[in-house]
């Protein structure tokens, strides 16, 4: 006996063994259907005797095991049911023959047999035979169960008769010696008459009878017989049979104590409904009634005496096993006894002792086992360990069994079975194949053992021919065990993963195994490891901006309160998810991930893209290659939202080593995000800007969010102007409907005169709406006017002529002395030079605010900005300015010290004035005659400005306007012929208050009219000698206050042009009337005339000096410049008579 039945349990001792076998050709499926129906009759209540017969069915039973039937009767095949197919009567004899042949196999032990014939109809089938049943087909065999029950009853009758037969002839004839197959030769030649021998025979027979009693349902009798057998056999040291008797005792006691059976889930007895129903009536030995006392008092007595206590059962099992252990040939018996004992212990929940039995079972040597038997043995060990709660041990043996399936000695390795068994070991190693269980914190487990198992799974699945499974397991290994893999292993694992994926790429689908296990997908969240996810705002020029009014409205609807802590709190929570910028439909959006590669080699990540929800999103995947063990590495993933709404970035997808993974952010530990929800606003047009001037790199440090997206830079000489063509192209799919342009100076420490940037938008606006692809051109004029003259002190040397305008009395004719400065004064010191050559920077930003399409409807616009950067080099500047009164009161001379700060020769010209040529770093004085300016007539600043600006500001502004006007009037222009560049020279910066005053047309306008002709400095009034020359002095008051009264004194004189003035002209000129004019108070905007007359007595050139009489009561508070009366030159000629 070499094949152990690992499924055995103690209560099997009480069953009778029936073999059900197919004979001839029987379809397997049909056979097992019939077998199942037969096997359902596993306990039969015997009529009249109130006993139960338990039947064990086997469809396969090795005949050599049958030879041990005397040793333990439940091993004896007592019944045979043959199932056969017979289609025609012709086949019948042959079938019948086969059945008999089959009976021969178990011949000596069979009590009875049956043949179930399917398919045969007709004559033969109508025969009424007890041992053969005919059925027309496998579907029409309603009374199979009935037949089987009859069969069982007939077996019972034989069994009962045998029992009675054996039990009664105690002292009759010689008792035959029962023996197991391997003992037979030992007893040859033994003295059969010795007491010892007789006792042995008796003991063995007792034991046998005990077995029969147990099978026949007479538990108490069995116990008694076993006890007697134990005593008998102990006395003759018949250890094998003593063990059997002890085991029988144990079995009977187990049956008594645990009527539910010990087999547990392994196909134990099913208490059928019928059994439960007549449980009360039926007397079952040992079964307790409700009050705990057996109905049968005799059995009560027997129980107390004979039945073993649960502790004793184990003791006796131990003893029995130790006896079995003495016989090498009884290995199977010993093993089975161990298994039975373990099952009992499992019920008793005595795991430690059970493990000892199992430990013993492991070492039982059954000789040469076939591989299949080894597998069976290991898996049953595993099951038993599992039964007693030793899951790790169970897993260990299951794994051994799995390995045995594919042992190299096996010709056809059972990879499928191996894989299946390996899967079953997973719980024992506390390993689940769901990566989600591993993402919480660091992995804790028996990594070495788990890794080994995963490797084995990978290998088994590969050999099974399922590369998809291998990829999944290998991915799992890589993902969850990454921390435990050595660098070398990492390399190997990834290499083999790549090999597998080349055949079968890994994906995100759940792999369902045939036995129902589902393998969830394994996303590679650690290849690479993502540390932070940040949604990026659009570049400044593309950001959508909400129109202020609409934004305010939104805020207002949220709460009526300006401040409420509760609302703030709520918003804070909202905000932690939602980001406060927007993306635009149709525009490329970016998400920045900080990733690092934990692998010791370069990691190639392909097809990395975003996973989003909420909005239709076109992800543009990227491929990247991370260097080995890189530090944090920024990766930008891009995509285009195709619709508007709220978009949520859920995660990203990658393809690494040929495995596609979808990594969800909420499943990732330790990922920092600043929110993943962002609003996508409807599409807006997008402008692309190109300029006629070269672009400059955005070299400036990023100071604020208001960084211009691009900028142009140009170098200009001060006063030069330049045209900048800005071409705007609409490159989005939305039409551009509105466009606004504004400009803003940046960092204006410098005082700029005039408008820096000017443009005309009308032309551009007329082209709107701008369809996609169309362009519009805007011309922007850049004009730089800066004040470079800040360093007057360095020009001291130019002032050495001693002419100081400021201190001179106004009316002094000496002012007219103009000394042209012939000598050139080149700039002396080198050290001073850089200061004038200092390049000044002017920067401004042009903002293009535009909108259109659906985005405009929603109230969004975009702003494009263009930085204009001008390096202003000094051209010419005026180191000093002074004025000299001109001959006319309406005019004056402006003296400008012009300095050429360039390195080129240049010419400076004023309006209707000749050019002045200046060499590099040369300074010259220019004199320009200018009309005085009526500065009062300049427009007043409007009300609005008046209200908000400080007086100081207003004053400055006023000066600026005045300067501008003066500048325009002067029209000073420089020209560098070598560079062909021209520009304006501005005096604005150098005009000081005093000079301005001089340049200003006095508010009191004095006009002298001689002979009806207005007379000013250079005009020579002609008159005839002897004729009355009317002289009129008119005062126009343009000031705001009333002036006067004044008195004027007119003094005529002659100038000899040699510095000598002759005032003694009483005899040459006479006044008609008074030589003193008196002017009464003149109210603002009024004028006043006073007239007189002169009479020239001789011909000659006369001058009239009109002087104010020193009238201190008035005019004191008025500036001297206001009282500037022209000298009148009168030429008296002899009248032609």
């Amino acid at each position, binding site marked *: 006996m070499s094949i152990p039945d690992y499924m055995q349990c103690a209560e099997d001792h009480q069953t009778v063994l029936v073999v059900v076998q197919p004979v001839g050709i029987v379809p397997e499926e049909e056979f097992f259907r019939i077998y199942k129906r037969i096997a359902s009759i596993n306990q039969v209540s015997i009529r009249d005797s109130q006993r139960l017969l338990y039947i064990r069915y086997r469809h396969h039973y090795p005949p050599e095991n049958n030879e041990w039937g005397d040793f333990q009767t439940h091993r004896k095949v007592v019944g045979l049911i043959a199932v056969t197919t017979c289609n025609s009567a012709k086949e019948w004899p042959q079938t019948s023959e086969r059945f008999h042949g089959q009976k021969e196999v178990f011949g000596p032990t069979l009590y009875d047999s049956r043949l179930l014939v399917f398919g045969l109809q007709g004559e033969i089938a109508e025969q009424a035979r007890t041992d053969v049943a005919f059925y027309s087909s496998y579907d029409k065999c309603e009374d199979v169960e009935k037949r089987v029950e009859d069969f069982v009853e007939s077996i019972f009758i034989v069994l009962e008769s045998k029992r009675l037969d054996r039990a009664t002839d105690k002292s009759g004839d010689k008792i035959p010696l029962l023996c197991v197959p391997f003992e037979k030769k030992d007893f040859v030649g033994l003295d059969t008459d010795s007491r010892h021998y007789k006792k042995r025979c008796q003991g063995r027979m007792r034991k046998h009878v005990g077995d029969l009693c147990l099978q026949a349902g007479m538990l108490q009798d069995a116990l008694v017989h076993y006890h007697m057998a134990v005593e008998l056999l102990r006395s003759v040291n018949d250890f094998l049979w003593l063990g059997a008797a002890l085991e029988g005792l144990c079995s009977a006691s187990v049956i008594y104590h645990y009527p539910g059976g010990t087999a547990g889930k392994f196909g134990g007895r099913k208490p059928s409904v019928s059994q439960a129903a007549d449980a009360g009536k039926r007397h079952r030995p040992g079964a307790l009634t409700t009050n705990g006392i057996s109905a049968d008092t005799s059995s009560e007595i027997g129980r107390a005496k004979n039945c073993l206590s649960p502790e004793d059962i184990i003791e006796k099992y131990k003893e029995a096993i130790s006896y079995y252990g003495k016989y090498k040939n009884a290995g199977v018996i010993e093993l089975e006894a161990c298994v039975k004992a373990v099952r009992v212990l499992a019920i008793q929940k005595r795991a430690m002792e059970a493990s000892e039995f199992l430990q013993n079972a492991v070492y039982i040597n059954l000789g040469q086992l076939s591989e299949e038997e080894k597998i069976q043995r290991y898996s049953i060990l595993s099951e038993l360990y599992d039964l007693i709660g030793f899951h790790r041990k169970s897993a260990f043996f299951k794994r051994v069994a799995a390995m045995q399936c594919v042992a190299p000695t096996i010709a056809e390795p059972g990879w499928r079975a191996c894989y299946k068994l390996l899967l079953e070991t997973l719980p024992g190693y506390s390993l689940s194949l769901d990566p989600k269980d591993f993402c919480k914190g660091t992995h804790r487990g028996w990594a*070495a053992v788990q890794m080994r198992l995963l490797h084995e799974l990978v290998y088994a699945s590969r050999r099974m021919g399922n590369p998809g499974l291998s990829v999944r397991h290998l991915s799992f290994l890589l993902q969850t065990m990454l921390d435990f893999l050595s660098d070398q292993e990492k390399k190997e694992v990834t290499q083999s993963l790549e090999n597998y994926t080349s055949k079968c790429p890994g994906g995100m689908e759940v792999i369902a195994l045939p036995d129902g296990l589902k393998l969830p997908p394994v996303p590679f969240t650690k290849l690479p490891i993502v540390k932070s996810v940040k949604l990026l705002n659009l570049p400044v020029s593309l950001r959508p901006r909400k129109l202020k009014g609409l934004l305010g409205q939104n805020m207002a609807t949220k709460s009526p309160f300006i401040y409420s802590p509760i609302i703030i709190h709520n918003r804070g929570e909202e905000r932690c998810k939602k980001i406060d910028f927007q993306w635009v439909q149709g525009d490329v959006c970016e998400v920045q991930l900080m990733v690092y590669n934990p692998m010791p080699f370069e990691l190639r990540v392909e097809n990395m893209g975003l996973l989003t929800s909420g909005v239709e999103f076109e992800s543009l995947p990227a491929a990247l290659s991370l260097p080995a063990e890189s530090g944090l590495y920024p990766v930008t993933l891009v995509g285009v939202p195709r619709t508007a709404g709220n978009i949520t970035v859920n995660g990203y997808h990658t393809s690494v080593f040929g495995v596609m993974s979808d990594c969800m952010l909420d499943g990732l530990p330790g990922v920092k995000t600043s929110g993943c929800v962002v609003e996508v606003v409807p599409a807006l047009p997008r402008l692309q800007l190109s300029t006629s001037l070269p672009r400059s790199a955005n070299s400036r440090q990023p100071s604020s969010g208001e960084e211009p997206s691009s900028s142009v830079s140009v170098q200009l000489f001060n006063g030069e102007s330049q045209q900048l063509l800005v071409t705007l192209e609409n490159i989005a799919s939305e039409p551009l409907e509105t466009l606004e342009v504004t400009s803003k100076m940046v960092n204006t420490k410098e005082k700029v005169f005039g408008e820096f940037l000017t443009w005309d938008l009308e032309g551009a606006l007329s082209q709107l709406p701008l369809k996609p692809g169309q362009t519009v051109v805007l011309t922007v004029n850049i004009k730089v006017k800066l004040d470079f003259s800040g360093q007057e002190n360095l020009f001291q040397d130019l002032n050495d002529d001693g002419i100081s305008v400021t201190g001179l009395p106004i009316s002094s004719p000496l002012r007219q002395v103009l000394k042209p400065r012939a000598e050139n004064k080149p700039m002396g010191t080198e050290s001073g030079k850089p200061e004038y050559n200092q390049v000044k920077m002017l920067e401004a930003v042009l903002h293009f605010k535009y909108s259109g399409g659906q985005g405009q409807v929603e109230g969004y616009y975009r702003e494009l900005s263009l930085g204009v950067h001008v390096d202003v080099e000094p051209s010419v500047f005026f180191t000093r300015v002074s004025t000299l009164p001109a001959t006319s009161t309406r005019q004056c001379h402006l003296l400008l010290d012009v300095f050429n700060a360039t390195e080129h020769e240049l010419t400076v010209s004023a309006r209707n004035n000749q050019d002045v040529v200046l060499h590099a770093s040369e300074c010259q004085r220019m004199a320009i005659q200018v009309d005085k300016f009526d500065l009062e007539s300049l427009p007043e600043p409007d009300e609005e400005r008046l209200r908000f600006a400080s007086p100081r500001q207003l004053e400055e502004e006023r000066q600026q306007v005045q300067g501008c006007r003066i500048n325009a009037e002067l029209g000073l222009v420089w020209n560098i012929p070598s560079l062909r560049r021209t520009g304006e020279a501005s005096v604005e910066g150098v005009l000081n208050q005093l000079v301005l005053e001089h340049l200003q047309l006095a508010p009191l306008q004095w006009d002298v009219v001689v002979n009806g002709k207005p007379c000013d400095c250079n005009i020579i009034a002609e008159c005839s000698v002897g004729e009355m020359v009317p002289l009129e002095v008119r005062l126009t008051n343009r000031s705001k206050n009333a002036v006067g009264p004044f008195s004027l004194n007119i003094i005529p004189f002659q100038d000899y042009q040699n510095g000598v003035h002759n005032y003694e002209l009483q005899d040459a000129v006479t006044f008609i009337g008074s030589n003193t004019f008196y002017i009464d108070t003149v109210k603002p905007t009024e004028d006043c005339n006073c007239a007189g007359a002169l009479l020239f007595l001789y011909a000659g050139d006369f001058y009239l000096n009109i002087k104010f009489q020193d009238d201190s009561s008035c005019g004191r508070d008025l500036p001297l410049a206001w009282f500037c009366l022209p000298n009148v030159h009168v030429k008296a000629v002899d009248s032609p008579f």
Partner: protein
Amino acid sequence: MAVCIAVVAKENYPLYIRSVPSENELKFHYTVHTSLDVVEEKVSAVGKVLVDQRELYLGLLYPTEDYKVYGYVTNSKVKFVIVVESSNTSLRDNEIRSMFRKLHNSFTDVMCNPFYNPGDLIQSKAFDSVVSSMMVQAC
């Protein structure tokens, strides 16, 4: 002396496992791993009776053909497992006990280290040297 010494956390994952380098390391992993079944069984069996007076030393967990596996459980349910060779008969129970005690003391020192996070793998050099002193010197 021991051929394998392991410290197993309360949650039954290894904090420390070291075996003689000459042998197959994985084998000891399996041995220690399966011995946890017995440890758990013993602890739960004793736990029912007297929690306070439970002896920390669990004795022989199970013998295999080549090795004997001994167990020890601290009050905080940290398990120590020592595997010795079956052929080494000179080792008495008392010596095993003293090995466990030494191990326990050293482990306590590790836990006292403020830079050690309970639950992390033990990487202390001092602990390592104590373990080394108890291991079979591989020559």
